């Protein structure tokens, strides 16, 4: 019997795996010897001999040794188990720029094609037409949704897109006073304040009264930009003609942050007269993903194009006269203009932009309208039902679209905690978003709850929500 297997033993000589850890490196021991020999070296350490010994590590990094993929997966399973807020456990009624929309299998699959996922910035257009054309199509839909002719190839997220819009405004008119409605998402305003430390922008936040920007309460003179949000972060649909006329009379840029899903049926930024549109593009095919990567939408009027931040793709022809796409107007960008660039953005969120183009291709004209309409229908249905509960009132009497604020008779954070026990992520506590008192809500901000409904929420889920809210507020 033994003799029968001998030839095979010769064919497969002794195999001893050195380690259970495979770390994606192709080099065999023989490869290493050959390559080092070619360089006249006998150890890998020699490659680093020119680094001063005084700063070199003598021991390795103080980290655990490598583990196999299945072992690391066990560690991550512990993290995922501790995330009680995952959508399969808690039905999501939270929004504030991060929405639980339908992302179909076809969008997930196309958006995870490795040609899109593992490419980089299309510096060589001859082999990057896939990403370039997808961005061109993305720019087209962002332009149409914003009602503005020029859209860039994406920015990090809505908040940083706002910062770029402010920089565009000060570049356009040389002024630094930014008058921002406090209806703009609190995080966006916080980010704007952070970056104003460097640019020296003077951020003036305008209070809301009954959920509506009280523009008359601040001095707008000398403003570089007038910034509003549509709907505002409390969900309210404000009459933007007030902001537009202020911008016009003070020769400031009108910057509008808008919900791109609502843009499917509401007036566009362009129709309201905005010079710049910024938005959070997460609703177009990107999962909640604990806040990132998301997608910064940016569009503007033609006369701002030389100040456009980030990349833009343009159509042209190749040397054989075939339609081609290429990144263009590159002279604005940091790698060419350096300290005089319009922005420091290099890497953006291309994969999310490509995904948005796919998602909007899936939705089409009617699908986007349907999603927007169903969000509004669900939100109004839930709001009407919730307002029947003792201890729940509307935080604003104004019209809203897909999100709204409720004033409770008790602390919203506590209510959310109770609701979670009944399988519902009941919204967001406004005071958690603002980090305390804020000019957007006059008093009792800790009792205000922000609620959203997407097209994925059923009547049954909404009715359950109302039961759970009633119990949480009144028990």
């Amino acid at each position: 019997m033994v003799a029968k297997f001998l030839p095979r033993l010769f064919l497969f000589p002794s195999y001893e795996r050195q380690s259970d850890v495979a770390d994606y490196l192709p080099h065999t021991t023989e490869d290493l010897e050959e390559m080092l020999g070619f360089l006249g070296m006998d150890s890998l350490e020699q490659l680093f001999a020119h680094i001063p010994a005084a700063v070199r590590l003598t021991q390795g990094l103080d980290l655990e040794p490598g583990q196999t993929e299945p072992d690391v997966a066990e560690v991550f399973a512990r993290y995922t188990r501790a995330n009680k807020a995952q959508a399969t456990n808690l039905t999501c009624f939270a929004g504030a720029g991060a929405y639980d929309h339908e992302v179909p299998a076809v969008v997930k699959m196309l958006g995870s094609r490795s040609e899109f996922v593992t490419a980089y910035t299309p510096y060589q257009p001859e082999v990057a037409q896939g990403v370039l054309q997808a961005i061109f199509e993305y720019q087209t839909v962002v332009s149409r949704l914003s009602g503005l002719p020029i859209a860039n190839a994406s920015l990090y997220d809505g908040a940083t897109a706002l910062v770029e819009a402010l920089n565009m405004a000060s570049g356009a008119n040389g002024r630094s006073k930014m008058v921002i409605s406090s209806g703009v998402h609190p995080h966006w305003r916080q980010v704007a304040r952070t970056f104003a430390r460097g640019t020296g922008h003077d951020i003036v936040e305008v209070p809301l009264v009954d959920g509506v920007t009280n523009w008359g309460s601040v001095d707008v003179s000398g403003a570089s930009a007038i910034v509003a949000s549509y709907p505002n972060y409390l969900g309210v649909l404000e009459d933007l003609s007030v902001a537009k006329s202020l911008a016009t009379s003070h020769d400031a840029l009108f910057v509008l942050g808008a919900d791109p899903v609502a843009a499917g049926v509401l007036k566009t930024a362009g129709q309201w007269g905005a010079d710049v549109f910024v938005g959070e593009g997460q609703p177009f095919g990107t999962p909640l993903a604990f806040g990132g990567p998301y997608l910064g939408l940016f569009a503007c009027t033609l006369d701002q194009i030389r100040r456009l931040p980030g990349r833009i793709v343009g159509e042209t022809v190749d040397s054989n006269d075939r339609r081609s796409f290429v990144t263009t107007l590159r002279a604005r960008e940091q790698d060419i203009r350096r300290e005089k660039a319009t922005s420091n953005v290099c890497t953006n969120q291309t994969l999310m932009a490509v995904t948005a183009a796919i998602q909007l291709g899936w939705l089409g004209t009617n699908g986007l309208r349907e999603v927007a309409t169903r969000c509004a229908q669900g939100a109004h249905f839930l709001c009407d039902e919730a307002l029947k509960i003792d201890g729940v009132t509307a935080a604003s009497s104004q019209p809203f679209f897909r999100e709204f604020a409720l004033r409770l008779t008790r602390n919203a954070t506590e209510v959310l905690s109770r609701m979670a026990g009944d399988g519902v992520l009941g919204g967001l506590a406004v005071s958690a978003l603002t980090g305390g008192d804020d000019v957007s809500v006059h008093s009792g901000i800790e009792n205000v709850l922000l609620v959203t409904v997407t097209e994925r929420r059923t009547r049954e889920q909404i009715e359950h929500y109302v039961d759970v809210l009633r119990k949480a507020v009144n028990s």
Partner: protein
Amino acid sequence: MRSQALPGGRAASAPILGHDTEPTIFEMSVAGRSAFQLRTTGVPATSLDELVPSEHRNPEVIALAEVSERDLVGHFTRLSHRQFSVDLGAYPLGSCTMKYNPKFCDAIAADPGLNSVHPGAPAELVQGWLELLVTLEEKLCVITGMSAATLQPAAGAAGELTGLLLMRAYHEANGDARKRVLIPDSAHGTNPASVTLGGYEVTTIPSNERGLVDLEALKAALGPDVAGIMLTNPNTLGLFEEEITEIATAVHDVGGLLYYDGANLNAILGVVRPGDMGFDIVHMNLHKTFATPHGGGGPGAGPVAVSARLADFLPGPKATRGVGGAFEWSTPSSSIGRVHGWHGNAMVLARALAYIDVHGGDGLKRVAQHAVLNANWLRHRLRDTLPAAYDRVCMHECVLSASNLKSKYGVRGLDVAKALLEEGFHSPTVYFPLIVDEALMFEPTETESLQTLESLAEAIERIAQRAIDDPEALRHAPQSTPVSRVDEARAARHLISTEDAAGR
């Protein structure tokens, strides 16, 4: 070559060679076709006219493409076939670190336990995410030799600006905002652009004949108005700044801070740490160093780690270990504030942590060693064809020059880069750094095999031979790619950036 194995990283056989133009999705659109399917909700279908006042309604319908799911799949699949990627073949694009992205890390990020979590959910409901973020921060601090970090910046450039705002906050807290930031002439363009946005002026420091910071010029530029210096080490020439200790001492002596641009951190993992070199602020490009996919130009992630004296200024809120074992959000006492709408590019952060855990301290060191070995092998292998701008041991990338091909045959670095596309490899970075004539910056990365490197070198030798035999043809390369060289001037002169501008 030791074995008869063929290269795994050459894409010349890939079907990326279709010559027909792919129509835009709008050109395929047929009114009445659709692909979407939504949940049956049972929610009352109240008319929008009753819900939204008419003055807010768009009187027009916004037209999107109307296609079937089959056509949608066909379109984006064909577009993907017109796109080079790391998964297809070697992508030695210098400075961008286009290494293989482990699929395991993508699978980690696809888990609904991570990616279906709302970022605004109360801390008690997202304990797993908070622990993950705290763990990543701690490991990044070990790797860089720093004290604390923010994970919020969404990309390297965002990290740079965050770091400069930290520098400003630190100086302002000392009652001394300062005016200037020093940058070597070899720096990435994001550095000077970030300095301007940080409210500082740029002072450019020349490189010496060895391609390193000219220490005397640096000392001459230093003064009490200098807030700090931004350095990439190894620098963009792929060379280690050997006088880093002297640089650090000189900058610290005038009260300035050292900023480490982590674009090239992958070269020194486990070998030397920015903190030990004297750096005060470090940004990392997780998509480069820790191999998260580049997504065609993002998303990235650009965490910033700092030394203890800067920790109180970090952006917030940040995940921290609370008392009693629970994790919580807290904001450092003198925080500059938020730099991202939520918590940063969380899914990229999760992938990076998985990559770090698979490799461990030992594996990360091998990553750096093998990356440096590959770059040096390629530099030495091509020494007669494309000599290195600075011919000595480099780090993870080598800057070669096509200046001899240009002077002898009129073939430029760009022509070599374009011809390489026909050979089944992505181009190197061209014309950067700016201080090298006809620069071709190759970063082979550690995940390409010896066979692939040899194949790449042979392709470059063939191109060099073509430069002698038929330079004119080379100036028209590539021809076998989905499109040939494009008219960039026309794109800029007559901007068509949307289907509507195209008038279709």
